[in-house]
């Protein structure tokens, strides 16, 4: 057995396509395992559902951060600052009032304005919530007095959305532009003033036990290695977890349907008679049934669970045209002398099927099912695109579906479509290349000397 694999490996090494597909498949497997280990499914599902304001500190529809590598005018990145980044000073104002000053200082070397700016508060106070006053300092030293508010736990201050500030100080211009604008540029053609900005929050505590955490976010136009979607979700989660789903759907679908089809075809052709006839008739009826409408009906009226869909896809695929092909092969094998010899020495029917007929034809099957894997991966994506994807499962198809409904291509969010599409293409390419190469190795009719 060891030597057979060693031999197969020796042959495989001569095919560059095999080596390429092995690399791609290993990477995909690596991603799948990384996803499953680093983010447990329950957490991934929660993140993907986007419940309880999980995604409030990420920008909406931000491109991946590596976009900047290809641009001379860098898009604004997201600045997300918490206590560790703040310079905090405390002083007593009176016997009861305590003043805490949070100074967030950050560099802003980008060419475009951010989407918006927000401050989030976590407060623990007994009866009187602290009062917070905000100040904005531009790199050139210009200081703007922003609004003030009583910060309760979980509240936020929309810095760029403060209409009062905009009206009174900036002539109703959007604050995310005005607060970053180079004073030498016009409001019609604003330019970003690069340099070190300061966001200062002065907190007045009215009780001793009163405490506050302030998070400052300047929402950029790029975020993370995969970007975000219209619900501010990091696409990384969907792309990472889409990998195990795609591989599972592809492998289980292809292996499950092909091996069962194979076994049924073997049984049918071995026993013959009414059993074979029944299998052939079922297969013929099934071939007239359209797969997609059945799946659409199922998804619309019953359930969209990915496992149910997978099960039905396998069940429908069992009695497919494969049965006809394999039957033809088995009919040839069935009458070989060694099978008759096996019958003569009293091997049982199942023994003949499993030990004599299937191993003879199996080498032809292996490339077949490898090339079938992408079909199932694509099928899952197609179903998701048709709104039949499992809404709880983050899959590549679901990302494409979201992108489609949000008009991603029309609105120019190419990354949103290209990322899952490229992963799908690479998956398809890898398994197809492997399948075709294996076909040339294992199929005697294509074997070269």
């Amino acid at each position, binding site marked *: 057995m060891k030597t057979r694999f060693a031999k197969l490996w020796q042959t495989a090494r001569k095919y560059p396509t095999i080596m390429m597909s092995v690399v791609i498949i290993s990477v995909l497997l690596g991603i799948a395992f990384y996803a499953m280990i680093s983010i447990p499914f329950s957490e991934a599902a929660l993140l993907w559902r986007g419940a309880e304001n999980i995604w409030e500190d990420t920008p909406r529809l931000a491109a991946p951060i590596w976009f900047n590598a290809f641009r001379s005018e860098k898009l604004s990145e997201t600045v997300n600052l918490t206590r560790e980044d703040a310079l905090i000073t405390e002083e007593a104002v009176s016997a009861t009032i305590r003043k805490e000053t949070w100074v967030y200082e950050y560099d802003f070397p980008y060419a475009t304005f951010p989407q918006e700016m927000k401050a989030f508060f976590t407060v623990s106070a007994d009866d009187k919530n602290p009062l917070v006053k905000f100040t904005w300092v531009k790199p050139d030293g210009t200081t703007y007095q922003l609004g003030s508010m009583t910060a309760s736990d979980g509240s936020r201050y929309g810095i760029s959305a403060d209409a009062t500030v905009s009206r009174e100080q900036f002539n109703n211009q959007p604050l995310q532009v005005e607060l970053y604008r180079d004073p030498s540029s016009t409001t019609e053609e604003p330019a970003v003033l690069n340099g070190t900005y300061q966001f200062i929050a002065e907190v007045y505590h009215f009780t001793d036990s009163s405490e506050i955490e302030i998070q400052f976010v300047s929402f950029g136009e790029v975020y993370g290695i995969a970007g975000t979607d219209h619900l501010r979700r990091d696409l990384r989660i969907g792309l990472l977890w889409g990998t195990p789903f795609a591989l599972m759907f592809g492998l289980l679908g292809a292996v499950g349907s092909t091996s069962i089809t194979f076994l049924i075809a073997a049984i049918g052709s071995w026993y013959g008679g009414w059993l074979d006839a029944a299998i052939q008739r079922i297969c013929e009826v099934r071939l007239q049934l359209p797969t997609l409408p059945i799946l659409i009906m199922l998804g619309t009226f019953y359930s969209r669970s990915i496992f149910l869909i997978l099960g039905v896809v396998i069940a429908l695929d069992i009695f497919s045209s494969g049965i006809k092909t394999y039957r033809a092969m088995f009919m040839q094998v069935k009458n070989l*002398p*060694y099978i008759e*010899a096996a019958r*003569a*020495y009293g*091997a049982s029917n199942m023994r003949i099927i499993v030990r004599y007929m299937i191993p*003879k034809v199996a080498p032809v099957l292996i490339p077949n099912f490898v090339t079938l894997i992408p079909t199932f991966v694509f099928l899952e994506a197609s179903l998701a695109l048709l709104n039949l994807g499992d809404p709880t499962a983050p899959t590549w198809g679901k990302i494409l579906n979201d992108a489609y409904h949000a008009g991603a291509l029309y609105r120019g969010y190419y990354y949103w479509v290209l990322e899952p599409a490229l992963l799908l293409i690479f998956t398809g390419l890898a398994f197809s290349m492997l399948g075709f190469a294996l076909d040339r190795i294992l199929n005697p009719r294509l074997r070269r000397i």
Partner: protein
Amino acid sequence: MTTQATSTLLRTENLRLYFRTTQGVVQAVDDVSFTMPRRDALAVIGESGCGKTSLVRAILRLLPSNVHTYSGNVFLNDIDVMKLSEERFRTNVRWTKMSLVAQAAMNALNPVLRVGEQVAEPLIVHQRLSKQAALAQAAEVFQLVGVSPDFLGRYAFELSGGMRQRAIIAMALITRPDLIVLDEPTSALDMLTQANIMNVLKGIKRDLEQSFIFITHDVSTTSELSDRGMVMYAGQIVELASAEQFYLDPLHPYSAKLMASIPTLKEKKELEFIPGQPPSLLNPPTGCRFADRCDRRFDKCDTEPPLQQLADGRWIRCWLYNK
């Protein structure tokens, strides 16, 4: 027809096997009755297409799907195996009582199994032995047929023709059945390998308790091995005699012609052949089936002769010897 019940190994009565084809019904085995004692070696001789292999199929119940008629009785150790269910027949008769060295024996080995596993298969199937135990026995029978046990781990395609043939014979021997049927065991082999295989078979026949049926169209190779000879023609037995009677003095005109067609070294003689072809088994002639090719034909040959026993013990189907 029964002689001594206890010494009889195999007895067939009115065995018929007809096949359905697109042209009609082929009467491949037509009313064959014969008895075989224990420790006997019977050579079944005849031209191609005279029903020899079909007789094997009928006895071993290896029926193709187009069977039209399968009737008569086959008694093995006085048990009518025709009455057993398919499953009982499989577990109790195949390879436990009777084994077969099939005609295309060269191709009778599974290409994806190692030869040892293949030869050991009957033991695993029938005696439910572990693989190790079965392989150990396979090594023994390999030695019996003169193949080194080193070859147990090889695949069929790594073996020469003679080696494969011996592996197949080893497989037939491994369960020590009462009867081994060899269907043209040497037909696809060269002369030297044939001689080698015949020597192996002779050795087995000398040392073991089994009975053998050799199916052959090659009379000379089996002459040394067989105790009795049985000539088939057009699906019927035409002569059944002891080896001395048969090889030295064949009575039936067809047997005589058959023997005359064999070249010998010692005497110089013109080799004979039989003009014409055996009759089509689709629609056999009503009278003697050999009549059309027989040079001793006479009026009576238009009616079918019965198979009958002569005073010297041989059975014959010919009006010339009708008492």
